[in-house]
């Protein structure tokens, strides 16, 4: 009887403690990072969690660094930078944004898109922004100036479906691969895309 009481008590204690311990330390990080790096990364992740930010992408970034044999300081800096970008993305896109939207927003900010334009995109597009933000980031990565890419995606935002935005991005990338100037390719293709979506002619705001 006494034994049973101890086991019940111990189980309750373990049940209270275990979730906190698991939340604080991701087992994937424990396996792949050295103790000092892990402690530094855990601290950033804990802060992000307390701030209500999605932490999975932070874990992913640390794992990416470990897999690529990056030095510890570089891994910690990358995780810290991403946490800051996620915070900025949430400020710009709103607290109700999904994890996928925040991660895509963080990438867009990294690419050079202004936070005010993320807010504008949120206001103009009455559905998920994940694909639109990803397309915007990818266009900038392809060489389209951030302003031109932002104008194009903002023009498409109210009426275009996700697949139409993806097709627009692919068309611009094809044109660039064929030698077209990136800004011109985006400007021409956005008008074509707007005709398809019934969004009218695009004029630079």
């Amino acid at each position: 009887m006494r034994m049973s009481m101890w086991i019940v008590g111990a189980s309750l204690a373990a049940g209270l403690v275990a979730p906190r311990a698991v939340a604080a330390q991701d087992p994937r990080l424990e396996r792949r990072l050295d103790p000092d790096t892990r402690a530094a990364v855990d601290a950033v992740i804990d802060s992000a969690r307390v701030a209500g930010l999605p932490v999975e992408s932070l874990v992913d970034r640390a794992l990416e660094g470990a897999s690529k044999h990056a030095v510890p300081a570089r891994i910690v800096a990358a995780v810290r930078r991403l946490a800051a970008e996620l915070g900025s993305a949430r400020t710009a896109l709103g607290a109700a944004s999904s994890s996928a939207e925040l991660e895509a927003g963080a990438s867009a900010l990294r690419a050079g898109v202004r936070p005010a334009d993320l807010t504008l995109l949120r206001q103009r597009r009455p559905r998920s922004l994940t694909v639109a933000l990803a397309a915007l980031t990818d266009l900038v990565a392809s060489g389209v100036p951030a302003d031109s890419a932002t104008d194009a995606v903002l023009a498409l935002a109210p009426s275009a479906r996700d697949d139409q935005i993806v097709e627009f991005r692919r068309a611009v990338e094809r044109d660039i691969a064929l030698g077209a100037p990136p800004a011109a390719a985006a400007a021409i293709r956005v008008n074509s895309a707007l005709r398809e979506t019934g969004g009218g002619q695009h004029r630079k705001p």
Partner: protein
Amino acid sequence: MFERDDDVLERMIERLREPVEMDPTLDARVMTRVSAPPIRDSRLAAAWDWLRRPRDFSLTPLSALAAAAVLAGLALWLGSRVANRASTLARPDTAVVQFVFVAQGATSVALVGDFNDWDATTTPMHPARQGGLWSVALPLPPGRHRYAFLINGWLWLSDPTAPRALDDFGTPSSVVTVGG
């Protein structure tokens, strides 16, 4: 020359009708064997008896705590594995994405990215018979996923057919976006 068949048969029948003397303890012995437990393999029986035998043992509170913590950790670990797998398989918006890479002369190509914890052993790509073509298909949840190809276990290369991702670690990466 011979007796008639009917006579032989008659004598056999009479012989068979004679009462037979039986051991008076036979009934008792039969009933004892019938009601006895079935004969088992002696080792199995001993193990079963050992398992069923109640016993007392003592445990310090610290040991009990440790045992409970181990059990709780195991349950959480198993639960998270099942939940992760179920959540990926059950999501209706998960899309199967085909990754293809040309690596002439490579001995191994792995797909490594956010979706497999950047673990080079999780998603090996499969070579075609000719042409140095390697491919693999993966179900991915909605979102923007970063990835790269790892050639021969040491060379990181981006996907030439996908947008490039800005990279923190000085190696090329690509992105694929799924769903909305």
